[in-house]
């Protein structure tokens, strides 16, 4: 099973590569090539892609705390509005270029994120994105879902990430 996957991926890449080469070497009918690629993708989909590709954002996993310095956070209490306001300002300055609270943008929409992720996971994703993208299965799947656009390290401290979490709690 695994082997066929690899083979398929390989084949898929070959198609992509040859497409690229053709484009470079001579003027070819671009639209017809495109259809060819599409066909391959469709063939593959039912076998491999769906679990990762479609459900990365939707996939609910509250037990995964991610990889990084944040081990345990309690967000069951009442919302600390002052902290949430700090988080809002931080979000505007450090995150909003890629995350919007009303829609999927460069990255996922943070509204309702704690229905899908643990707060520890969210904080580790903010403060330790490189390692998360390398090792954490959800982060890896998200990277693929979001076209290889990596979560940027914005040098946010743990304390600041906590404030951002509080802001996310206010989003409805």
């Amino acid at each position: 099973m695994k082997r066929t996957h690899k083979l398929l991926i390989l084949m898929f890449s070959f198609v992509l590569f040859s497409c690229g080469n053709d484009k470079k070497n001579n003027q070819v009918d671009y639209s017809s090539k495109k259809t060819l690629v599409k066909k391959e993708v469709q063939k593959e989909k039912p076998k491999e892609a769906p679990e990762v590709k479609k459900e990365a954002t939707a996939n609910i996993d509250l037990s995964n705390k991610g990889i990084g310095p944040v081990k345990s956070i309690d967000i069951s209490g009442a919302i600390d509005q002052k902290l949430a306001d700090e988080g809002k300002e931080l979000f505007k300055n450090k995150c909003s270029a890629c995350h919007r609270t009303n829609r999927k943008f460069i990255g996922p929409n943070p509204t309702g994120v704690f229905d899908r992720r643990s707060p520890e996971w969210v904080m580790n994703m903010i403060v330790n994105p490189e390692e998360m993208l390398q090792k954490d299965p959800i982060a890896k799947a998200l990277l693929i879902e979001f076209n290889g656009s990596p979560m940027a390290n914005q040098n946010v401290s743990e304390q600041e990430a906590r404030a951002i979490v509080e802001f996310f709690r206010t989003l409805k």
Partner: protein
Amino acid sequence: MLVATSLFFIGCGNNGGKEQKKGGVLGSNVAEKVYVAPGEHDEFYAFVSGGFSGQLAVYGLPSGRLFKVIPVFSVDAEKAWGFNEETKPMLNTSHGFIPWDDAHHPDISQTAGELDGRYVYINGNNTPRIAKIDLTTFETTEIIEIPNSAGNHSSSYVTENTEYVVAGTRFGVPVPQRDISIKEYKGNFKGALSFLKVDPEDGGMEIDFQILMPGFDYDKAHPGRGNSHGWFFFTTYNSEEANTLLEVNASQNDKDFIAAVNWQMIAEYVKNGGGKKMPANYAHNVYDEHTHQATSTMKKEVLVVNPAEVPGAIYFLPTPKSPHGCDVDPSGEYIVGSGKLSADVTVHSFSKMVKAIEEKKFSGEAYGIPIIDFEAVNAGSVKQAGLGPLHTEFDNEGNAYTTFFISSEVVKWKLGTWEVVDRKPTYYSVGHLMIPGGNSRKPFGKYLLAMNKITKDRYLPTGPEVTQSAQLYDISGEKMELLLDFPTVGEPHYAAGCPADLIKPRSRKIFKLEENKHPYAVTNEMDARVERKGNEVHVYMTMIRSHFAPDNIEGVKEGDKVYFHVTNLEQDYDVPHGISMIGANTSELLIMPGQTETFVWEPKQVGVWPFYCTDFCSALHQEMQGYVRVSPKDSPIKLSWSLDGE
């Protein structure tokens, strides 16, 4: 003479062959000494000036790997130096915007006579200037023009605690400049030695005073240290004061001078109100790392001191045959003057000098400045060590190393006994040499870098122009060992070296967005916008992996002047972005995380014109692009902008 020189070249070429053959057996051993494994760091930084390139290159030693070329005096399209609105003022002078200079002598700041790794100072020769490079950002953050100077060559050297950066003129010039016959040189032309006071907080420079010396050519200089701290030494040639065919006419005197200047005494004199202010016009350009912008201020006055006003502050030490290098050993006792037309290296003694002054052992005077009797100040000389001695540096074990230009070699000799210990050929025509800390109280005597003027057959040929080269020697043993040749950017005129550990921990990774005080910065995407002021359009743009905001702009008209003020919102190490606009008469911008830069575009044709990111930043780098619609001058289309329809 020409024939003799060519013979030497050929001789050296042959030696080269032998050296390589001999090295065959031990070859792997030598390779190990310069091998820095992938991912590992070099032990030393070497800051190698680019001579006529006007820049300063940063290499690692012992690997010889090039890390960065820091733009200093010349425009650099790669980094938008002199092209973006922020750095254009850095190249302003009393002659207007000057896009180039000849960068010669870098010197690292010192504390208590030891390298402190905070700043590099370097001189521009042609339009006299001194620049300061901040070693936290590796960027040029200050350039000051030197008035009353020309061919700013005996520069830029720091005193033991970086109290001063010193800049001496090579050319005698009329002071003040005026319409005068060149033939009236003698007595009318002056040689200004400038002392720039350094702010201990930020390394900033200001001209404290200029000494108006006789119109000799002041060639090289170094500060005293230890006992001789407080003094500065300058070699001179053309004590003949010739104004034409200097090749012959400035080579007449059997001895020229090393000028010994007691700068502490003169600084004290000036502090107490001495000296005279004279009108001047020179630019002082400062780059602010928080506004990410430079400002240029024209200064209108400079304080000058006539040597006669401060008796006992300046003496001449006779030194054979147009001395070039002027180097002071780590103890501060020996002042080495390399008479470039002599076969000997002359060494003066500081303690003998002090005694001779006390005992008034003078052999004459020049323009009222006492000339100390040669025998009374001379400590000894290295006899017939080679041809064309130029420069000397020191290790921490009492050895000196002198380059010989004409005979293409480095000679190691002992301080005090003046005996030659070893000699090794260079390929070819070596100028300066550098030992990290080799002109301070604490040399790191492990490596020696020789910087050569001529390359010839050392590399694969690249047409008539062959890159110049540097050569690395291991000097940790009794005998020197040639380890490595590596090519350099421009002319490797001189270098300053420093243990990496002094600089590495303080190196900046990003500029914090919160600290960005650029007047046109937008530190979050929500504030990105476009504003019109008459025919000026200001785009307040942000960039982050992998888009610009805004990326669609309409309502720009033919004849507008469009300013792109672009802020990089990234806050991660080594994630710069670039931007370039079709048809902009300038370079790309290369913007560091948290930084703002500006370029100007004056659209000349109606249409829809793209811009894109020029630094491969991410997997979606090719997607990082946008459009500006340019409409006819009288078009009713209103200014609008968007990103993804918002």
